[in-house]
């Protein structure tokens, strides 16, 4: 058992850095850059993304085809996915003393499920197995900016990401803006209640990255370096 340097937030010897925000907020770019820098500085880093796994996406596809998915089962499917990733890929490196950089964490579920009408207290309880991060960045950006970025990079808007299942609008773009607007509102709210670190993500990449580095330095004071290692999970 590694018992050195327990985190004041969760007690594990590793550190947990979380990146949250709307799709297109720039959080993945920033997470990748921060991970690279940490590894180059000499830390053991484990970077992981929460995107739909095969388990969940195949089920969601099937559920969608048969019209079976409801906000509750949709929420549970994502919880399964997160729990699987957590038990498999987040907890072991955290216990082994790595810096775990998570591109999306339980907050993603809190905001998305709330936007779908699930009981927030219920969602929080389900995810209560997930430890509190050492720092959680929220990349705040207006919805229309993320839409422009998506269109500019020719990314397709997916059905659920646009909240089309909720019947907010017949039009994909319109539905996207409304649904993501709900999510943003929820992010803005929990960023305060959960003491997230809010990052103005309308700026260029470099000043944001510099800000992140200055924010994590104090957290890592006295944190041991190992043989530098970057693992992208």
């Amino acid at each position, binding site marked *: 058992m590694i018992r050195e340097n327990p985190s004041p937030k969760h007690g594990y010897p590793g550190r947990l850095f979380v990146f949250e925000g709307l799709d297109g907020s720039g959080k993945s770019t920033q997470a990748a850059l921060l991970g690279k820098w940490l590894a180059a500085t000499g830390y053991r880093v484990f970077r992981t993304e929460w995107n739909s796994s095969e388990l969940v996406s195949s089920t969601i596809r099937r559920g969608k085809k048969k019209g079976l998915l409801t906000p509750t*089962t949709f929420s*549970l499917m994502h919880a*399964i996915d997160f729990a699987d990733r957590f038990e498999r890929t987040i907890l072991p490196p955290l216990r082994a003393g790595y810096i775990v950089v998570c591109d999306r964490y339980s907050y993603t579920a809190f905001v998305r499920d709330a936007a779908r009408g699930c009981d927030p207290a219920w969602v929080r309880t389900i995810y209560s197995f997930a430890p509190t991060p050492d720092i959680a960045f929220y990349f705040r950006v207006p919805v229309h900016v993320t839409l422009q970025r998506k269109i500019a990079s020719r990314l397709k808007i997916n059905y659920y990401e646009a909240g089309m299942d909720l019947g907010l609008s017949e039009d994909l773009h319109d539905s996207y803006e409304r649904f993501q607007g709900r999510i943003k509102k929820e992010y803005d709210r929990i960023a305060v209640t959960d003491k997230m670190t809010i990052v103005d993500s309308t700026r260029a990449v470099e000043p944001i990255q510099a800000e992140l580095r200055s924010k994590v330095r104090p957290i890592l004071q006295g944190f041991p370096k190992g043989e530098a290692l970057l693992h992208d999970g």
Partner: protein
Amino acid sequence: MTDRTYGTRLPGIPTGELAGKLIVIEGADGSGRSTEVALLKEWLEIEGHAVVDTGLRRSTLVSEEIDRAKQGHTLGATTLALLYAADFGDQLENKIVPALSAGSTVLADRYIYTLMARAIVRGASRDWARHLYGFAFRPDLVVFLDARPEILLHRSIGKYGSLDYWESGMDLCLSRDFFESFFLYQDRLAREFEWMTREYDFHMVDGNRRPEEVHTSVRELVAPLYGAVKKGRVRRPGPPTPPGPSASA
């Protein structure tokens, strides 16, 4: 309104009074549940009630994933517990609630209680399990078939020809010995069902007896739900109290 569920509102589900009755038969493997469900269904239909029977792991959404996970034993305890919850949620919303809305009686061969007990003996906290299933509809009646471990053992051997891997809790590594593991596992489950008895208003029925005798007892509990008091004093299930956070383990 949260009055039909155990505390969590279900988005997009009708909140008013549903016409149908929800009857749950719970009990360990080998307690005689399936036999009783069949007898009860038969009787209710003869009495003129439309009956939809349902059990665990019968939904189309994730049952394949559950089977796959069980074969590979690759999922962690939390993940597996959530997989079962998703499966239950799917059945609740796509089968149980529509049937209740249509005025049918839903006869459930096991319900959230078994799922909760299984999750808890595998490491989930009672509080977590209780909140996870907070979206479940409150049954009109929960019958718990209580049978001695020795009886369960003999029925289990009779049914499978040997002891079942999962019903013996072999995944918990309590013992390498099936026989011993079976008793240890059933004992742990029984401990969980015990606290649920009060909290979820179980009606205990002695399952050590022959199926016809068990059925007579169950009928006495079921009949009042339809306004017919057969004989003696049969208590209608009182208003269930929502599980408070203070009643934690």
